[in-house]
């Protein structure tokens, strides 16, 4: 592709609380977004937003919040409510794609109720709440695969709290694993372009289609009215990504889904390198 013909495209990612919420390889998610943008000539700047830093919604094209230890979540929750709540709400209502993993997901729901001690208030972006029943209740730990708009997402989950959805739309249906609460087969939550999920491992490296979807959402929002974002999402060689993806599916006994996933990267026909049915409606509307 001729670089001169491409307009210079820059995206800015706000990484919230990188020092406090970094327990489960969250660097993998950031790296994946960076690499997948870089391979397509898109410059992705990462801005770290720690405790005390203000969040100006118009400065970011995407936001990421990771997971951390309970002990470190309390000051983060405080900061989220005191300092970042207005900016974050504005960003979310303005359709900025937000990915919140594990602890970050819990913080974006209504509240987190620990086994002992007072409730920890969240932002209430997702109509959902989390209850930790105490040490006697086993943690939800292990590989997980979900159905997301007809495609699989794979990851690893490790959480003590159970999340229950109110009116929030789940991210997907659990195929194998625990998901939100190991009762209702839901995993994660979606509100506008915000995604909350328990899946790490890291999530984005092994789910390139989801990573691309996330990038596409940001491109559509920021550049959508001037350019077709999908022309920039040129296919990449995702052999390793899909092999790793399929490995988890195979391990979970989902052999057909694994074969589908492996077929994805040999499927040369699609421009997006991902099956068509997962291009979300949201993006199409914006176009």
């Amino acid at each position, binding site marked *: 592709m001729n670089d001169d013909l491409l307009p210079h495209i820059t995206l800015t990612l706000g990484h919230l609380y990188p020092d406090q919420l970094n327990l*489960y*390889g969250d660097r993998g998610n950031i790296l994946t977004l960076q690499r997948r943008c870089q391979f397509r000539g898109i410059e992705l700047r990462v801005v770290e937003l720690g405790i005390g830093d203000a969040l100006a919604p118009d400065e970011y094209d995407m936001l990421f919040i990771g997971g951390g230890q309970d002990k470190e979540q309390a000051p983060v929750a405080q900061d989220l409510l005191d300092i970042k709540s207005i900016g974050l709400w504005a960003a979310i209502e303005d359709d900025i794609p937000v990915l919140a993993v594990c602890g970050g997901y819990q913080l974006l729901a209504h509240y987190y109720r620990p086994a002992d001690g007072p409730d920890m208030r969240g932002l209430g972006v997702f109509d959902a709440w989390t209850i930790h029943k105490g040490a006697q209740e086993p943690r939800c730990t292990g590989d997980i695969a979900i159905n997301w708009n007809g495609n699989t997402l794979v990851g690893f989950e*490790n959480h003590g709290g159970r999340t229950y959805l109110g009116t929030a739309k789940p991210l997907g249906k659990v195929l194998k694993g625990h998901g939100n609460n190991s009762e209702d087969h839901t995993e994660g939550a979606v509100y506008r372009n915000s995604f909350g999920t328990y899946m790490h491992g*890291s999530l984005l490296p092994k789910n390139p289609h989801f990573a691309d979807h996330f990038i596409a959402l940001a491109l559509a929002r920021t550049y959508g009215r001037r350019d077709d974002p999908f022309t920039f999402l040129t296919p990449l060689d995702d052999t390793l*990504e899909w092999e790793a993806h399929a*490995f988890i599916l*195979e391990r979970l006994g989902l052999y057909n889904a694994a074969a589908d996933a*492996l077929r994805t990267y*040999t499927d040369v026909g699609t421009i997006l390198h991902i099956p068509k049915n997962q291009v979300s409606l949201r993006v199409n509307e914006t176009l």
Partner: protein
Amino acid sequence: MSEQKPPHFTNREARKRSVSNSTESQMPANHSSKTPSNQHAFKGRQRISLRAGLAVMGGRAAGALSRRLHLGGGTSIAGMVAQRLYPDIVGHLSTQLAHGSVLVTGTNGKTTTSGLIAAILNDAGLRVWRNREGSNLMQGVAGALVIRARPDGNLRRAGQAISIFEVDEAVMPQAVQILPPRAAIFTNLFRDQLDRFGEVETISMRWHQAIDLLPENATLVLNADDPGTAHLSDFFHGQVVFFGIDDSSFDLANEGLAIESHQVIDTRTCPHCGGEYVYSIQYYSHLGHYICSQCRRERPKADVRAVKIVAESIDRLRIQIETRTQQGEIVIPLAGFYNVYNALAAIATSQALGINWEPIVSGIEQFKPAFGRGERVHVEGRTLRLLLAKNPTGFNEVLRTLFSDGIRRYVLFVLNDNTADGQDISWIWDVDFERTTHHLATLTVAGTRAFDLALRLKHAGLEQEAMTIVASAPLRALKVAHESKVRNTRQHRPARNKEAIRNTHMIELDDSITNHRTTKTYGISHALDTAIRQTPSGETLFVIPTYTGLLEIHRELEHRGLTPRYWEERGP
């Protein structure tokens, strides 16, 4: 079965006896001053107990059976059976040790630290009993005692004996309760096996419980540089010995490498006030000289300190030591800066046990690394060096050791996610693989999660063509192989199937995706061959496996007759 038979029990008995006789005879008058002086409550107490005898016999029978069936060394099973028959077997046997016991715990460095202490005490003329590395849960500890006990329920030759047990972080409270130690060593606290422990904080809480149970006449040995262990002294009223490094030339800031900012910090805030720690010197991760930004509590002064460290070669560290009573120089024959901490912990413990300086120096300088901790194996004209890396900080430090002098290395990574490794491998994304990119001669990636690691390396900037990926057999293929094996051999020896499948490393796969038959190679044996083939003769191949990867490599080397079976390895 081509491998050699386990040696006869009587042979091992005889060998052990001859060794122990020689150490005893080597103990003339000048050695007696080196043996611990504070024997206080630890006089060997022997008493006949029918129940203990039964437990010992049951455990040893189970262990012998396990060895005979080639299931393993049989110490853990011996301990498990004995504990089932007599739950207090550990307490019963441990009180007979003339010099008591020492417990070593922490995320990294347990095996090397306890190995170093054992080498020092051995040189000081004591008979040292250890649990085998990996058997660090209570049944492993019990097993280590049971296999040295007589059928009357008493220990053999308990006089002059001291036991050094490495104990899993999470079982430390039980261990302290059942086996009151003379010294308890906490090496460091990093994130490890989060799927098992939940969070780093969980371990911290278990350790508080352990300290509460620690008898006051015991000595607590703590890493002053790790705020996660140093603050444990607040919960203990007995003697505390701190060890630490006082050499600012190893500060990360001095390395001047931007990538060093990617450190995995696991203790960030002060447990007293929640304030953030600020560092004047940071060695790696959260280890260094710190002070709380709010309550101003700072790193305790180290009693045993390394004031100057010179890395003479990859596995020769010359350190200048200062303790309250002694100054001196010691050469640590091990690879990796982190081994300075292990050596300091061993020195601090030995001094607390009343050991003189000479055996400390000789014990450390002549130390032979344990399996997977940097020891050498010679294979087809190449040297294999195995460096276990099981969590982000451990991995980062191994990479720092190998890739800081600009020499291109031949490397084999093995990443497994079995239960003993921790099933969550997200942590590989926290490891600084970026520093390897321009320093790799050849690279082979293997293990159950080879693709995940390859993906991580790809994101670190490595070309996919630059690595050879040898995955474990995919489950699909395993399933097919298993089914055909079961069908063919059901009448005969179904027990062998597992082994047969594990050793299958050429699998013909009817590839439904590309619609043509391909023969793919899988498995650790093939990975090792590939890596060795890529390494020129005379060069060194660095093998960096996770825990079960290390066991697989070991099993593979055993099959090739290059290393002894691990339970035949004789510790110091």
